[in-house]
């Protein structure tokens, strides 16, 4: 590999303030990483997906399940990313302590560019929200606990 090429790369890497750069070619592989600081590209859990998914055919919604006297867990009907609001910066569809009626929207799950609305299976109070905004969710994962009225 030409050392001049590597030098040029380092200059460009710094010039554009990149945090990480991978180049692969038949001549070899180069990985440049910035020494420290906040990464530009988020590499957290969000895009590290679970290795195996449970993919049985399912109906539109998964029935809520009773968790010992705490309330009803609203579960994810699919694998995707959970959002609390309809668009970035908008008011969350539900907050802890809020009273909701059956059918009210609680959040959204984005999967494969399709948004699926998660609605309240019963009327009740939002007891807790178990997941952060924009986090990955798995099939059947508990999202929100509702306390029946």
């Amino acid at each position, binding site marked *: 590999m030409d050392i001049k090429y590597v030098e040029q790369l380092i200059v460009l890497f710094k010039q554009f303030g990149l945090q990480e*750069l991978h180049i*692969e070619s038949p001549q070899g592989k180069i990985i440049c990483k910035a020494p420290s600081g906040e990464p530009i590209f988020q590499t957290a859990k969000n895009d590290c997906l679970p290795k195996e998914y449970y*993919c049985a055919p399912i109906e539109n919604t998964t029935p809520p399940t009773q968790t010992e006297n705490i309330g009803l867990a609203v579960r994810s009907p699919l694998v*995707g990313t959970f959002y609390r609001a309809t668009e970035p910066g908008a008011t969350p569809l539900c907050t802890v302590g809020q009273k909701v009626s059956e059918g009210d929207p609680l959040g959204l799950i984005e999967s494969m560019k399709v948004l699926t609305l998660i609605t309240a299976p019963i009327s009740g109070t939002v007891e807790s929200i178990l997941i952060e905004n924009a986090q990955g969710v798995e099939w059947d994962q508990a999202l929100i606990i509702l306390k029946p009225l």
Partner: protein
Amino acid sequence: MKDKILIANRGEIALRILRAARLTNLSPVMIHSQADRMSLPVRSADESVCVGPGQSNKSYMNPQALIEAARITKARYIHPGYGFLSENANFADLVEKEGFIFIGARADSIDLMGNKSKARAFMMSQGVPCIPGTAAVGIEDDLTPIYEQADRIGYPLLIKASAGGGGKGMQIVYDRAELLSQIRAVQHHALQAFHDSQVYLEKYLSHPRHLEVQVLGDGHGQVLHIGLRECSIQRRYQKIIEEAQPVNLPDHIREKMLSVALHACRQIAYRGLGTLEFLYQDSEFYFIEMNTRVQVEHPVSEMISQCDLVKLQLQVAQNERIPIKQEDIHFQGHSIECRINAEHPATYMPMPGKLKMLHAPGGFGVRFDSHLYTGAEITPLYDSMIGKIITYGSCRYEAILKMRQALSECVFDGLTTNQTLHQKILEEDDFVNGQYDTTYLNTHSFF
């Protein structure tokens, strides 16, 4: 040294472009997100550059990262594929300003066709029939002139929010008496949903067919057509089965559709591959939009014309001329494409997962365009389309028979796909007889 082509996409279309690059003496450079590091196109490329994390807005849709990838690898061409930045005029502009060749339409064409009302006005000025409609009216506007226009178009009418799309913010109105209340209702809804109360009326087509014309231009006024396609089998306003050529279509309609499409494209000296989409009902056709890029369903046109459309697209970019003439293109036989999606066959709910074992279909006149392999992960980050089965037969019925067999040979073990839905459609009488329109999946129940 070979010129390099940066393929700014993923999945099956990335592989499709890569294969065409091999035929045109171009060295393929793949960009990819962290999630696609192990993908087939990345492994098949001469070079690859990671441009960001899994989320497409930070990787595949990050113009600056793509430009840097092209600069670092010294690429000459950038191919945007479909989706992502393929119809983004600013990106096309940026690519050319930075000194690369954008394999696609010029920014001015993308801009013209990307704006619904501008595209419509242009097409009407060129004599291309459009769906009769009215001007937009806001919540404060007087509705008197609208009544007159509505009467002229005739009921039923569709009220559409100017800022809506994909079936959102629409309402059918059947007679004059309900017009006022329905317009106000849609305006209120539009104001809440899109912060814009503007709505317009359009002739309502209750059972249109979706037909389209494939074009290829050299950017200097030379434009060819590569026939028509029928794409009426749709779910959620997205195509799942396409065919070429459309059946049960009168010759004079076919000829007129081709000639208006070519005329409009010549007027703007269209460059690259493009598709003009039309709705067809009661012996009338109406322009709806133009896609200024390669389309998912391009293989059915390739099969019946024996033209490699992506190769032609690259050749046009390399030489600024089309290497074939219209009279060299002959259509023969029939082709059908089934899009295989990782989704529930009845509810269409997305179903990401891991493909434990893949068995692809085969045989004479059977083509499987896919980036999948045994062990591949299908992530929730991207579109659910995981491959396309394309069959070619000497007649439509033979293409159907081949598709039935191909669908029965396919194994996508570990994934839920719409394979069974395709199998049911391919056995259904209305489909087999070529008697269908865009309402097909709403009027036929398979599960």
